[in-house]
């Protein structure tokens, strides 16, 4: 055994350094209260403190830090959407991710191996050509590739032409990748806390006090907290918390399940997704194969597993990668996803002055964590909606200006 290790065992300080400051009393008032201590809420807190000098900020989390969808997602980051507004928005997020380890001095392990979305039908090929073109015009790298190139990128993929749904081609998006999702939350939390943001776990918001059309306080299980502004970032609970402020949303909450295999030797480099089969996979740096798919067939506030969904994921994964037939599943889990009718998020002001929404992230919001946090912080600090998120206000449903991303979202994340 190396001497250094023995010395460390004997003489290293016994107490590990605290990642976050010890919990404090909840103050009677803050400038900004952020409801929800997931990646989105923590990122907003960080950008408020770091770039806008707003430090009297409390993040209130009913469970423990990042115990919601931030901890449950499959960590796919990409920008190959179809409407120009979305493409530009998510591309900005990819850029922030590229620099996030340095920004936070915290390794988020962004691994940009590229994302490949498979087309099994002519309709999918046409849809992908449109996406490739829109992406190119927005400065995002996405190209159509044929099965020859696919075979080179993913030699283990089943490209047998006689399959029921043979692979006809694919949308290849080199900037796509995966991230160590927990680290994103921890990194933002740590750097926000260093700048004075208070993070209160096991603190549930149970009521929102609105006076004369303006939010003035929130009620929690630890008492009332007055505030100048509220950012709501509670993912699957969006409708329930918004209702506390008297807001009704175009959101329905569905479970989203995922699972992971035992670690295997590296056998696939890019992220591979098949909207036709409602399945996508990636192999983590540790070797596990993360398998995700579409949301459950009916709404629910629960994270139970269903055999139907797991069977479908497994069947289609093996159809794409026959070599995985013998792999063992290690874990499965679910989160609750806040789905909007157009598969785009809701960000911005509401009818209640000072009450800002960061919701409707459904099955695809992890990849937006940095840019959403940054934009929400700017919105709160200036009370002006940043241009980048202008199209995503909740009022779009009143004016029928929907941002339809269904085709570019469903089961490809």
């Amino acid at each position, binding site marked *: 055994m190396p001497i250094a290790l023995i010395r460390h065992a004997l003489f290293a300080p016994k107490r590990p350094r605290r990642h976050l400051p010890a919990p404090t009393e909840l103050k009677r008032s803050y400038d900004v209260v952020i409801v929800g201590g997931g990646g989105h809420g923590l990122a907003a807190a960080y950008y408020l403190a770091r770039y806008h000098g707003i430090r009297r900020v409390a993040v209130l989390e009913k469970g423990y830090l990042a115990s919601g969808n931030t901890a449950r997602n499959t960590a796919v980051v990409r920008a190959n959407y179809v409407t120009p507004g979305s493409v530009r928005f998510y591309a900005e997020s990819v850029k922030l991710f590229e620099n996030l380890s340095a920004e936070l001095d915290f390794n988020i392990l962004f691994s940009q191996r590229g994302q490949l979305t498979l087309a099994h039908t002519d309709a999918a090929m046409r849809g992908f050509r449109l996406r490739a073109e829109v992406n190119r015009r927005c400065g995002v790298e996405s190209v159509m590739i044929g099965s020859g190139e696919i075979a080179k990128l993913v030699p283990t993929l089943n490209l047998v032409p006689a399959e029921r749904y043979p692979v006809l081609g694919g949308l290849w998006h080199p900037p796509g990748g995966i991230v160590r999702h927990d680290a994103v939350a921890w990194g933002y939390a740590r750097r926000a806390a260093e700048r004075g943001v208070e993070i209160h776990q096991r603190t549930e918001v149970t009521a929102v006090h609105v006076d004369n059309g303006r939010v003035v306080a929130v009620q929690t299980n630890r008492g009332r907290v007055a505030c100048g502004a509220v950012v709501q970032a509670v993912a699957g609970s969006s*409708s*329930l918390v918004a209702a506390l402020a008297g807001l*009704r*949303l*175009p*959101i*329905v*909450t569905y479970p989203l399940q995922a699972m992971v295999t035992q670690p295997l030797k590296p056998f696939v480099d890019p992220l591979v997704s098949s909207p036709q089969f409602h399945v996508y996979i990636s192999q983590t740096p540790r070797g596990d194969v993360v398998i995700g798919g579409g949301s459950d*067939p*009916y*709404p*629910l*506030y*629960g994270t*139970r597993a269903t055999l*139907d969904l797991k069977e479908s994921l497994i069947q289609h994964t093996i159809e794409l990668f026959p070599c995985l037939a013998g792999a063992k599943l290690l874990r499965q889990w679910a989160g609750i996803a806040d789905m909007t*009718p157009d598969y785009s998020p809701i960000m911005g002001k509401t009818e209640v002055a000072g009450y800002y929404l960061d919701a409707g992230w459904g099955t695809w919001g992890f990849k937006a964590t940095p840019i959403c946090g940054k934009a929400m912080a700017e919105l709160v600090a200036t009370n002006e909606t940043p241009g980048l998120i202008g199209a995503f206000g909740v009022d779009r*449903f*009143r004016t029928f200006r929907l941002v339809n991303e269904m085709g570019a979202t469903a089961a490809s994340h």
Partner: protein
Amino acid sequence: MKLIPCPLNGLRNVNEFAYGGDVLEMPATSASDDAWIDYIFTRENKAGLVREWWFHIPTSYWFILERDTVTDTVIRSYPADQVFSRRIDFPPRRES
């Protein structure tokens, strides 16, 4: 919720059914745009008891199901005519 009691076919496996959304009262055709927008997009998204349209796929049968969205359990189901007993007549379409 692994089995759903279908008023027509009895207890059947949940994967024989499709979810069809909340049972909502449709606004009058003369209602305001806001009322219609609400009807189309806004949802209670309740945690708890809900009343919904469900569809038994093999028999093309629509019915109403009450269930709990927190415990994932069925409360009861019944034919739609228990709620919708009146025929809805739409005014003839205006040519434009």
